[in-house]
């Protein structure tokens, strides 16, 4: 596994016509830490993730991965550099099995894919690596099931598996627990605790239990700007943050 990478966002700005989704945002994520990003709806969290992952080009500003400027790189190249991303709304190949979904992610990072003859399914190294990742997220039993037929919680687990299969240095998770019940959420938190340290994790979440259980530091996004960064306890007590969420109503609680 490669070394966890640090992420540096400097003066990142993204405008859609008159709407500024990301407003001169600067942020430092230390290598190996779990850094949560929270904020009220409309704060621009998904837009930010899209920029980090390379799906959106910023209007201004730069993104650095371990000191290397990755702004000019498109999504696929960033993945090859070590940035993996999971989607808020499940984004899988529904007609492929869970194992195949993961195997494709492994394949993307092991040599080129302009091979036209040998069956991918007979590539033992690929399949073994994919199985191992699936086992790690707890889906070993469901390897042959079509992704479209998995339960919602299992699909979220598969999302994570696909991202992990690319052996990332930076893992960007967009609400990994979206739509999950208590049990599934707890399982996901336990899983994320396990991988903590093996790579840097940027976590966008609404579920405050998860944020406090996992995050080393938290950044708060409001209207595209980062208004505070600190430990979870520090953020919890921060008056500005409380105001942004609830308008002076007390502690920051989950939705």
């Amino acid at each position: 596994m490669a070394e966890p990478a640090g992420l540096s966002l400097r003066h990142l700005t993204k405008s859609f016509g008159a709407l500024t989704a990301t407003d001169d945002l600067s942020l430092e994520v230390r290598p190996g830490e779990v850094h949560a990003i929270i904020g009220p709806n409309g704060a621009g969290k998904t837009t930010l993730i899209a920029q980090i992952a390379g799906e959106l080009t910023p209007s201004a500003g730069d993104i650095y991965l371990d000191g290397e400027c990755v702004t000019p790189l498109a999504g696929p190249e960033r993945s090859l550099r070590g940035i993996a991303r999971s989607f808020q709304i499940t984004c899988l190949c529904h007609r492929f099995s869970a194992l195949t979904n993961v195997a494709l992610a492994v394949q993307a990072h092991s040599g080129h894919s302009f091979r036209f003859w040998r069956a991918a399914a007979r590539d033992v190294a690929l399949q073994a690596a994919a199985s191992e990742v699936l086992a790690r997220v707890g889906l070993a039993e469901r390897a042959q099931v079509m992704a479209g037929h998995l339960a919602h919680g299992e699909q979220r687990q598969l999302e994570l598996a696909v991202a992990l299969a690319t052996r990332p240095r930076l893992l960007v998770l967009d609400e990994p627990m979206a739509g999950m019940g208590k049990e599934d959420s707890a399982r996901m938190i336990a899983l994320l605790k396990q991988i903590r340290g093996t790579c840097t994790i940027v976590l966008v979440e609404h579920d405050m239990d998860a944020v406090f259980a996992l995050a080393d530091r938290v950044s708060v996004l409001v209207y595209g700007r980062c208004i505070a960064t600190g430990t979870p306890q520090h953020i919890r007590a921060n008056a500005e943050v409380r105001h942004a969420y609830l308008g002076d109503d007390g502690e920051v609680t989950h939705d």
Partner: protein
Amino acid sequence: MIARTRRPELPLRLLVALAVMLLAFALLPLVAQWFGSPYFIRLGTRVMVFAIAAVSLDLILGYGGMVSFGHATYVGVAAYVVAILAHHGANEPLLLLGMSVPGTANAWIAWPAAILAASLIALVVGAISLRTTGIYFIMITLAFTQMVYFLFLSLQQYGADEGLRLANRSELLGLDLGNRVVMYYVTLVALVLVLFGGWKLVHSRFGMVLRGCQQNARRMEAIGFRSYRYKLAAFVIAGATAGLAGVLQVNNEAFVSTADLHWLRSADLLIMVILGGVGTLFGPVVGAVAWVLLELWLEGLTVHWHVILGPVLIFIVLFAKNGLWGLLLGRGDDRG
């Protein structure tokens, strides 16, 4: 324990269906001769030529999600290249860019040249068209087809809309391609090779990426695949294979015309894929057989057979969505 993706072996039903199909094709010339109807041999070759073109279209349509309305272009261009080279081989040399290029009927030169021409055009058309999606892609492939059509229509020296006769059949390994039985089996071999190669391709690393891009391009880009490159490569491979169909076609018919480049011919190929079963690889073969036979039968009924074909086509599109291959094999959704 390593969980393995099911190896892409052919399930029994599929194997049986393929064996029957192969047997039927292999025996056709013998049966036709026995019944004293050698016409069916040339017809059979014609069907197989369409089948090769339709299978190549299924690669990009059924496995790549690219709705190309210009696939006939690659068949037609390859056919023209062979015919033009044969023409200059029998007559005066071709004046190209100030050089005098002698024509030839040698298959080892003409056929690769034809397939290369088809591939180059596919590369250019694909490179531009694949920057778009959805309806734009459909319309652009249609437009490019027209462009090539008008180009050849303007070439008076090669017959324009009256077409060009094949001066000499291609010389391949000493085979007499003028002999309809020989031509038939050469085409059958080509079809089998195309199907075999296609099967390998869709299960290879490349094929898996292509199919992934069809299902979810966003996901594929996120894990590190540039979907444009894979789609373009598939487009060119399909174009080259269609070119193979073209060289066989012109040798079978001894003739090529701009009708082979018309967008309605591309629509014919799409219909064969749909009728046979999109994304089944083998279905388009059945689709080609069914469509050619249907047209023949209707042609025999009335000179105004288009007025029947139209509604039949509408009916097929609306109600025969899964294709004949799916019907023959029962619903098998095993893809992966």
